[in-house]
């Protein structure tokens, strides 16, 4: 029997509209109804507040490209943020705090990868388990209390500027550049595409899909560690619910950005735009005094609208 020819998929640039239309529409909407939304100070604020999510959503893109998921990211970020706070408080060193956060994050990421790759536990279940573990550990190390009195060097990271650009934005841009290079210009990046697209091809090329998969999840945990520093700096304290629900926003941003949950079809720039769209939405709703419950619901609507627009385009 003759098979139908493979229907060609839109290339990444034909996909801009889904997420870009949504982003532009949101900016226009809140520019019109939210007082002060378009002020330079507020727009800068939106970007600064999007940096933590950027650091989670970029590795989440890679994980989703492998047909995986990491539900533990928010909880791991809470834990690493607490570690940063506790260690920097004890040693008075921001750097040691960061190292502690990265170590804990990388450990959790590696465990996630190991559970998924070696034990073959579905990513949804495996990372739900580590989510619980990270949440429990957060309550234990913090005793359920905020960790306050941390050195001002930590807090200063959030407010400092480099060449007039807020340091968090610089960090997010560096992260984006690093992920872009990693995904599109390294061998490892090619193998990430293959992990979701055709694992057999990797085996035929003599590569170990399992080790690559562990590495992808480990990168996610490591980034949660770095983002933990920013979170602690932002709140000027360690808080046992700091990262609550961030994995939801991260997955939403990836989905809004047009990365597919199948066959290794990912797009980093889309994820970045998706992060900003989520940030604009939350900021705008804040400005018009909507409670956070409405914000969560709105992010859900955002995902559906963006994917609907993509669906319309690909059918057209």
């Amino acid at each position, binding site marked *: *029997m*003759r*098979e*139908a*020819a*493979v229907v*060609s*998929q839109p*290339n990444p640039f034909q996909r801009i509209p889904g997420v870009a239309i949504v982003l532009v529409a949101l900016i226009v909407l809140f520019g019109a109804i939210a007082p002060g939304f378009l002020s330079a100070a507020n727009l800068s604020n939106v970007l600064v507040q999007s940096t933590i999510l950027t650091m989670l959503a970029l590795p989440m893109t890679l994980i989703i490209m492998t047909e995986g998921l990491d539900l533990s990211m928010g909880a791991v970020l809470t834990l690493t943020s607490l570690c940063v706070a506790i260690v920097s408080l004890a040693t008075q060193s921001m750097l040691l705090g960061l190292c502690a956060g990265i170590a804990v994050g990388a450990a959790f990421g590696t465990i996630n990868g190991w559970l998924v790759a070696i034990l073959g536990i579905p990513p949804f279940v495996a990372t739900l388990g580590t989510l619980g573990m990270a949440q429990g550990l957060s309550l234990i190390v913090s005793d359920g209390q905020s960790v306050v009195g941390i050195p001002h060097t930590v807090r200063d990271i959030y407010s400092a500027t480099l060449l007039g650009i807020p340091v968090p934005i610089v960090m997010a841009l560096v992260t984006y550049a690093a992920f872009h*290079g990693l995904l599109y*210009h*390294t*061998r*490892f990046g*090619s*193998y990430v*595409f*293959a992990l979701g*697209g*055709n694992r*057999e*091809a*990797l085996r*035929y*090329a*003599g*590569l170990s899909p399992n080790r690559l998969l562990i590495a992808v999840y480990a990168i996610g945990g490591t980034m949660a560690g770095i983002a933990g520093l920013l979170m602690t700096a932002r709140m000027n304290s360690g808080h046992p619910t700091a990262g609550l629900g961030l994995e939801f926003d991260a997955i939403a941003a990836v989905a809004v950005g047009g990365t597919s949950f199948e*066959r*290794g*079809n*990912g797009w980093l720039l889309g994820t970045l735009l998706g992060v900003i769209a989520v940030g604009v939405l939350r900021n705008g709703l804040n400005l018009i005094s909507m409670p956070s419950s409405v914000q969560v619901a709105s992010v859900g609507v955002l995902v559906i609208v963006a994917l609907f627009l993509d669906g319309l385009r690909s059918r057209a």
Partner: protein
Amino acid sequence: MSTALQMAPAPNEVTATPLLELRGISKEFPGVKALDDVSFALYPGEVHMLLGENGAGKSSLMKVLCGAYKADAGEFFHKGEKVTITSTADAQKLGIAVIFQEFSLVPYLDIAQNIFLGREPKGRIPGTIDRRKILADAKRLLDMIGFDIDPSVIVNTLGVAQQQMVEIAKAISQNARILVMDEPTAALSDRETELLFALIARLKADGVSIVYISHRMAEVFSLGDRITVLRDGRRIDGVRPADVTPDQLVRMMVGRTVDMTYPRNFADKPGELLLQVKGLTSSSGISDINIEVRRGEIVGLCGLVGSGRSEVARAIFGADPTTSGEIIFDGKPISGEPDVAARRGIALIPESRKSEGLALLRSVGDNLVVSALRKLFPSGLFDPRSGQRTADGLIRQLRIATPSARQTVGLLSGGNQQKVVIGKWLAAGAKLFIFDEPTRGIDVGAKSEIFALIDRLVAEGAAALMISSEQVEICHVCDRAYVMREGRVAGHLARNELTEENIVRLGMHHA
């Protein structure tokens, strides 16, 4: 096809040493002897056709060749030297590459990255890819095989034929000297087929040997330097195309031994018309299908795997949308959805009954009544005792070997699972049973019971449409048969014309 005819003459095997030789290869699976003492020689620069019916052992031989299967017995010789092939890595080292029908490409990487996956040229920064070099290397390779395309194109945007070209480029880049192609033209248009043949001619001229599995007679004769025919896992003969006729090849392929008798009481005269399919075309690739089935008949639907048999069944059942044509069932037109077809009395008993026909973890009783719930309990309330009675009745009627209706279906033998599927449709009041490979995975004794059961069903006024790759079974059990080829009905065989040879003749591509 003109390109194929101008190919270089085959090398003379009297003087040449075979590039690769297999001697006495055997491979057994539980209950099946897939390969039985098969020998096979491949000479440099030849296209060696592998011919045989479904299940003759072509795929097994191919998998032994590329190291995917480990042979139970037999020897391999590469350029006259004894070698072992126990893994795909062994095969790769000997320069053997398989062009899979299921492509081994990564959809969202570009052509160059796919060709050199795992062997990317290193860039200046550790871990990076030398982009300029990978594109240049790929371009050179693509030029070599005559495929004019930009190597930075994402593979997912390519058509089937172009992906196949990328696969071939990938194989060549790994210094493959032996290419194994499994029905490479099955998914190609005529124009694409010509390009592939031109490429094969070029590869041959470079001394690359090709093992080519095909069901199309025209290809076998225009492309092949030599033909090996397999049947029942055994090598029947090795011939040159010039020395045989298509008819002789067909005769070599058929003639499977019958190791059992099939019970069948043929009706004296056919019953009334139950199913009438007129000009049916569906998006799944079948076109202009005309079929009739009468009460009391078992009608065969044969042809090669992939000829569209299952697609016809799915279209009649409403599982695939039809684009044109008409299906008249029991005097009234039927269209649309599987639940409509099921309610009207059409039963589809799929090949993969584990995934499509049964809830394996539920009980025999639950499975038997699930399709009949609407009929048995019109009020919507389930009455366990009445359900139990129905299930017990069916277990007796169909002689299902189970300790009780409460037994988990997954624990029954294949034959008894098949009976549960039939019983389920019987309870729902089915009149037409469409069987897709009803005896697959069932042992010989159970086969004969299943056929006896089908025979009883049609004797009581039902009808059956039976898809089977087992031509012996079709010949013994069916009143008549339709033969499919490439999405169309290639011919109809009445009871007195129903022979294996005729089925194969109609099923092969002669054009």
